[in-house]
């Protein structure tokens, strides 16, 4: 078997003949894959559906579809009035957008230098940045918390932004350096002839060409920051500064039996992510696989 593999590896690529015939085995496979799709989607539909129901109706039958006669927005109204969901959204947006902008700027500049310059210590710094991906938050959180406490940054947005920024930079560097190294040098050489300085080369050539990889980094950084309960819970303990994941965790411990409110809260956290995902999923999956298979 190995011999065949070796022999054909050298030859040029041939398109696999795609069999368009519908065979029984294909029908079975599609049925299995379809079932798995259902297992993935159904729980979310169940939650959204129940979020529009009264508590008693959920207790009776959580499978029945909502219809105009029993449809209610009460759960959402409670969520916004009693739990300050709106404020939590604002907190989350402030934190996550700052982290994304910071990661793009600092990570972009750093990656550019690492991809293009040869200087003493380059390999050491690059290696140290890549290995930083391995540190779990548990291993760093206590000293970080103490330092933030001394700087009076606990219970402040900046207290979550700084560690999240640092935590996301290594991933950004890996993705961006990988992409920038593959850009051919000719354009930059032409730019130098035109009299551009390195910062201009960066903003006018490197950034526009690297847009897809910046998009991937931005999306993942946003999702990780938005979803990161551990850091949010540790640094922020005051209700008015709680971001959305931390607030959600609070809701579950305080109103665990208010099923309507629970369903509505879950739906409220998932919906923005769902929209981001459907709009940008091309970049999400492409970027993920580029990074994962390479690294």
């Amino acid at each position, binding site marked *: *078997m190995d011999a*065949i*593999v070796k022999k*054909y*590896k050298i030859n*040029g*690529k*041939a398109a696999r003949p795609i*069999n368009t015939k519908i065979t029984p085995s*294909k029908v079975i*496979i*599609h049925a299995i*894959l379809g079932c*798995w*799709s259902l*297992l*993935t989607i159904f*729980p979310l539909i169940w*939650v959204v559906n129940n979020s529009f129901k009264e508590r008693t109706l959920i207790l009776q039958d*959580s499978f029945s579809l909502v219809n105009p006669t029993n449809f209610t927005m009460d759960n959402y109204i409670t969520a916004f009035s009693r739990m300050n969901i709106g404020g939590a959204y604002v907190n989350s947006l402030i934190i996550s957008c700052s982290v994304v902008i910071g990661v793009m700027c*600092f990570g972009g*500049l*750093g990656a550019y230098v690492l991809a293009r*310059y040869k*200087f003493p210590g380059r390999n050491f710094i690059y290696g*140290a940045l890549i290995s930083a991906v391995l*540190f*779990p938050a*548990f*291993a*760093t*959180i*206590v000293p970080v918390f103490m330092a933030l*406490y001394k700087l009076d940054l606990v219970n402040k947005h900046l207290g979550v932004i700084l560690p999240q*920024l*640092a*935590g996301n*930079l290594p991933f950004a560097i890996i993705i961006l350096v990988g992409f920038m190294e593959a850009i051919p*040098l000719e354009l*930059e*050489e032409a730019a130098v002839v035109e009299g551009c300085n390195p910062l201009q080369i960066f903003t006018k050539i490197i950034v526009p060409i690297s847009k897809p990889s910046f998009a991937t980094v931005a999306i993942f950084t946003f999702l990780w920051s938005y979803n990161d*309960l551990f850091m949010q819970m540790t640094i922020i303990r005051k209700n008015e500064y709680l971001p*959305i*994941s931390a607030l*959600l*965790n609070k*809701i*579950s411990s305080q109103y665990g039996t208010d*099923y309507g409110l*629970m369903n509505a809260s*879950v739906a409220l956290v*998932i919906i923005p*992510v*769902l929209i981001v995902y459907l709009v940008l999923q091309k970049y999400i*999956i492409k970027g*993920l*696989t580029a990074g*994962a*298979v390479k*690294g």
Partner: protein
Amino acid sequence: MIYKDKKIVWIFLLPTVVLVSLFLYLPFLASISNSLYNIPNLAGTNKVFIGINNYKEMLTDPVIMTSVKNTFVMMIYTVVFEVGIAIVLALLVDSVGKMQKFYRTVYFFPVVISATAIGLMFILFYDYNIGLFNQVLAKFGAEPKLWLDEKKALGMLSLPVIWQYIGFYFVIVLTGIAAIPEDIYESAYLEGVTGFQKVRYITLPLIKGVIRTCLILVITGTLKVFDLPWTIAPRGMPNQTTYLLGTYQYKTVYEAARVGYGSTIAVFIVVVGVVISVIVNKLIKQEDM
């Protein structure tokens, strides 16, 4: 060469290097040092040097034993089911050719949802009164069950983790399969190799590297699991039986205020992660020989 001016290197790199040093490397070193102290509060005052006593305590702490056992059990569940189902789904999707994009989009979606939201969702599924699971049982006329009792709790905590991340490994494996040159399959087809044999002798050996990446990610990921178990079963409920290394570390530091001991657990988590990654790397490499 155009990139001669080296001054700019340090200006551009400075923010990244400073942030990563201040918030990742220095704290990690500080954690190692803290693990040798008794620190009774989060402000870090009243530190007392106690040498390796924290490590000694860890050896006899019954909850640590539970956490280690639970973490390893969950690791086995995730390796078998997460990576296993992901590989099966990827092989199936690859074999039908059509609708790949649809399956990819659907399967990957849970990955982007916050673990907290998924945790809450599963609390609702497991609920005794209204839960999805008990209502399904009721449809078949069966008695409702207590899903989070001591016997089932760990499995029930692993289920959402597995459900959420299968799509992630599915996409990685599928990409690995797509990278296999088509002519290998073609020649195998001419030699009469089809179906299961094709998978066993061609596809799987050629995606070994990808599978290794997946295994390392799954294992180190399980060591870091926190959000989901903390949401569904905070404080190792029921009866401290479901503590994982991550959740026990959090409880030690933030609820018991035993900062030094918590740092010891953190160091332990990192060491276990590195050791297992090295072992996995060695094992799969040896098979290549």
